[in-house]
């Protein structure tokens, strides 16, 4: 059965789409994964999310133990699953993270920065949402750090100021270090996928997934300062579920009176 499942995966690889730039919202429902090669666990984080979201137990090639699946399995498809590079996040992002509705990125992080393949990528210079992207997950330390300048790194202050929220609906991640204690990282990405499948809104889905992932470490030994999640989001689209992501027409950019960036976070 495992072999049959792998055959199914191989077919997915055979038909995986080439990177095609997306210049606007489209009606497809796609997700993608981008993995820094700097630690093995990053691969697990991204794959566990992608595999759960795409886990269609009614497909005869899949070796699942149940016969019930989520509507997401039928409606969404995996468009990309790549070893990560800076170009995918900043520069050529319209062919990569900004060509899908939901992008899941894992690697080492620092405030508004991700390390991909040993290179530091400045997320503050990215423009997300002018392509297809609505939701991006940074499964890493500190990318969503909430110091006094956080909004200025994420929100445009003029029509020419390039910042990530340019049609992007929400960015998910950690405002502190991400302590992977006792498998919590992979648990979190699994749980996040399940929360989306069960119709949680994306914001609470991530928050609760992080809480669930740290099922052990906060109880055994309390380490102040680690594993605190944050979600930056456009106020208007703060309650979106995955079914809303590709609807289009909800993008908000600089100049709109609805261009209000909020944060849902654990202090």
């Amino acid at each position, binding site marked *: 059965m495992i072999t049959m499942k*792998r055959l199914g995966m*191989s*077919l997915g690889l*055979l*038909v995986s789409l080439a990177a095609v730039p997306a210049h606007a919202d489209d009606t497809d429902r796609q997700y993608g994964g981008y993995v820094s*090669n*700097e*630690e*093995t*666990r990053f*691969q697990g984080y*991204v*794959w*566990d999310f992608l*595999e759960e979201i795409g*886990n*269609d*137990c009614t*497909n005869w*090639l899949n070796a*699942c133990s*149940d016969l*019930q699946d989520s509507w997401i*399995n*039928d409606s969404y*498809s995996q468009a990309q*699953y*790549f*070893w*990560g*590079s800076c170009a*995918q996040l900043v520069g050529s992002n319209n062919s990569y993270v900004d060509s899908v509705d939901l992008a899941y990125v894992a690697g*080492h992080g620092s405030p508004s920065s991700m390390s991909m*393949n040993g290179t530091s990528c400045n997320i503050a210079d990215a423009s997300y949402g002018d392509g297809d992207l609505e939701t991006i997950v940074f499964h890493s330390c500190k990318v969503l750090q909430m110091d006094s300048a956080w*909004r200025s790194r994420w929100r445009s202050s003029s029509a020419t100021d390039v910042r990530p929220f340019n049609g992007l609906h929400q960015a998910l991640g950690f405002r502190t270090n991400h*302590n992977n*204690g*006792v*498998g919590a990282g992979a*648990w979190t990405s*699994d749980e996040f996928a399940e929360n989306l*499948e069960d*119709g*949680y*809104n994306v914001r609470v889905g991530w928050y*609760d997934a992080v809480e669930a992932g740290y*099922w*052990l*470490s*906060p*109880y*055994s*030994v309390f*380490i102040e300062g*680690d594993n605190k999640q944050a979600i930056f989001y456009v106020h208007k689209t703060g*309650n979106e*579920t995955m079914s809303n992501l590709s609807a289009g027409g909800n993008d908000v950019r600089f100049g709109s*009176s609805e261009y209000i960036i*909020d944060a849902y*976070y654990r202090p």
Partner: protein
Amino acid sequence: MRKRRWLVVAGIAALAASGIIWFARTRGVRATNGAATSTSTQVGAGATSAPGAGSNRPMGAASMDGGKVTLSPEVAQALVEFARKAWKNVPLVADKNPRTRGIMRGIASAAIDLEHARSRMSSRFLRTSYTQDVKSDAPIYLGDRWGPDGRPTARRDAAAKPLAEPMRTVYREGADGTTFGLAKMKEQTTAGAGLEASAASQQAKGFFVENGLLAESTADRIEPGEVRERRISSEAPSGGAEKDVLAQQDILLRRTYEDKLVVNSRASVGVLPDSGEVVEIRLERWTAVDAAGETTTKAPSSEGEARSTATLLEEKLRRQIELDLGTALVSAQVEHVEEAWFQTDTGLIPVLVFVVRVVVAGEEGPRNLVVAINPGGDDSLIWDQGRIVREPAEPSEAP
């Protein structure tokens, strides 16, 4: 799904041609990942050099040098002391789970119609999710009570009121009868200060105990854990002052058995600070024990035996650090160890939990890593905790 099936048919021919190549590639993936996931990895053996930044091969996939891990003298001594003692397992009360399930279902029924909700079985967590967009809602409060049959006996406001918008409600129930979760996608409409921490913990404990979900004994204690805040930082629409408001309080209880933490038992409630409504309930792996049935798994050891056992425990610890970090690890200093319990399907077993300060290639400065080992058996019992773990597929090179 039809689309996917069509793709399957269309891909059969291509699959036949690519099958041999694919299997060869898959074997390669297994071998690479095996070093990172196998529990039988030999410390210090088979180390490979990390690839350069130009390669996209994972840098953390191979075995590391065990000499990178150092133990503080206090930790080393604590391992010997633990090894010197007798170890025991404490069985769970056999018939507790069905009763807990009945009560949890009774409480959940105040928020979701389980008869008509959509159900989905998770193949990852071995649990069933019941989901429903409810059109009316009767709030649950910490003072509400249900009887052993799951019927309400005291509700502050049991009358369901219509909602302006449907509200997604999710109830989850583990197949083993020990994990339950209820979540209402409901948020506060006005600001509130919330409950003071000790009052919050006391009320949460009352909710679980007086509803028959948890029980306390001299040895098996329910203690205040933490009251966590969820906050929303709101940007003012037209240059006004930013607002930062409390959105939810998550009240966590902790369990101790013979004064040591049971690390995977969890009971928590999420409460809206303005109304005091309970919008989340979680109860996981917190089953009463049958202390009379406890069994000794290791007798007290002599000094020599204890030192040998401590060496084996240290090896297990090193292996777990290796599994977590691979060759990305630069150094690891084990700073603290805690003796604790872990609830398995059948009982409480002793475990050791370590705080490790690690320096990892590519990261700024050292960070913490929490590692747990099962002194008497397979460590994956702790790390996977019933979750089905599948080997990850390797990403492709981007075009």
